């Protein structure tokens, strides 16, 4: 049984024929669309390495069957930068030293982008830590990650303010 789905991936419309309904969004991205920036950690929704945005909301791609996503818009780490210009969250992770080995970083960054657009953390580091708790970093770069999220949020808020003015 082949299932046809349409997805918009990083702004590009994609028509996808799924030969197997067991394919998760994570495996679709990595193995079939060759977007390997999204990482497989636990594959059980416990580590957050596979975090992507679906219709603007951060989710664990490993627990989402691709067949359920017909018509959805997916943003992965590959879709953040505009050419050579890094997304403010990517730039802030570098500026704040928000990683060590880098394996969890795409998930951390996508989660941070989701967190900032949700808008529930304010400038409170405690709330940022709580709302990033779905992303594990076994190198323990949490201090830099928290600083990066707060810094990126400040920059993005300032940008929005400039655009509005």
């Amino acid at each position: 049984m082949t299932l046809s789905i349409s997805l918009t991936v990083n702004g590009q419309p994609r028509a996808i024929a799924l030969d197997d309904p067991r394919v998760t969004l994570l495996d679709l991205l990595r193995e079939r669309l060759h977007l390997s920036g999204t990482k497989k950690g636990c594959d059980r929704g416990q580590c957050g390495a596979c975090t992507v945005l679906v219709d603007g909301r951060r989710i664990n791609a490993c627990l989402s069957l691709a067949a359920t996503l017909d018509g959805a818009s997916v943003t992965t780490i590959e879709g953040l930068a505009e050419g050579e210009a890094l997304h403010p969250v990517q730039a802030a992770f570098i500026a704040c030293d928000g990683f060590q080995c880098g394996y969890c970083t795409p998930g951390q960054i996508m989660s941070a982008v989701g967190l900032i657009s949700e808008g529930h953390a304010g400038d409170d580091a405690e709330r940022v830590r709580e709302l990033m708790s779905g992303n594990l970093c076994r190198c323990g770069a949490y201090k830099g990650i928290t600083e990066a999220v707060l810094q990126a949020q400040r920059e993005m808020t300032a940008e929005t303010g400039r655009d509005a003015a």
Partner: protein
Amino acid sequence: MNRFDFLRPTGLTEAIAEGGKPGSAYLAGGTNLVDLMKIGVSRPERLVDISRLPGLDRIDWLEDGSVRIGALVRNADLAYDIRFASAFPAVAEALLSGASAQLRNAATLGGNLMQRNRCAYFQDGASACNRRVPGSGCDALHGENRLHAVLGWSENCIATHPSDVCVPLVALDAVVEIEGPQGPREIALDALHRLPGDTPELENALLPGELIVGLRLPAEAKAFAAKARYLKLRERMSYAFAVVSAAAMLTVEDGRIREARLALGAVAAKPWRARAAEASLIGALPDTEAFAGAAALALAEAKPSGANEFKIELARRILVRALTLAMEGTPAVMPALPASPFSTHTGDRHVA
């Protein structure tokens, strides 16, 4: 993961017709079911995708003052709905204390009610588990069981129901709306989850093919908004299931408790409403003595199912703490660490 047929019904009637066929399972957010399918604990032959069914993702305020939450409302959307969270703050706090932000964005309310237990032996295909394979035994009974049930368990199963949000919901007399092959019906949330007894494989009161379509909170449930807390003790600060948890809600008149609602989480195979403890508080002065008395009543029938006697005293203490904090008043702003007993005031830091 086993192979399965994937069905995408476009309406409720079609979904229920498909869901009623043998070997079918309903799929909504997938955060529990897909995981269990990956490890082979759930092996549906037919997966009925209900995640796009129209009309089940709304929060409706009804004329009689009650609120109806569609089964497909995502946990995050319910918790951050301003009107809902101000009417039912302990429900919002419980939602935000569960799982991670990513999972709360995907998981649905109906799925939360239907989630399976998190016993390691249930999830391990090499272990005996009467829920997974009826009659095979219970390896948890003589295994690693420090987090298992202390109320309502049997020799056949000592697993707990892991939900946070069900705890305040059961305390607030939530009603579950069901559609099925025999038509619609509704039951109290308190009657949805079953204690294991001799049939631990029967986890809930749903009949084959029945689907939870919504959940209602009665108008009276709003009376507790000013003094309502959910507290959850975890083995780490965030993103963990409860060791024990408690919802406590009060109304106070002329310095005495007028009405109390109490329920415990992670102590039994269902969210555990403590009705005798509630009754003991009516007319009492809201002090530590009354709260301790209520907690003693709530755990009066408790007994350890293994190396978990500590949970009984812990449950008493979390209940006293939840009552004490409820009496102080619902926080004006959701705490930075929702439901954490370590952060009693907004803005408290758990690290310096």
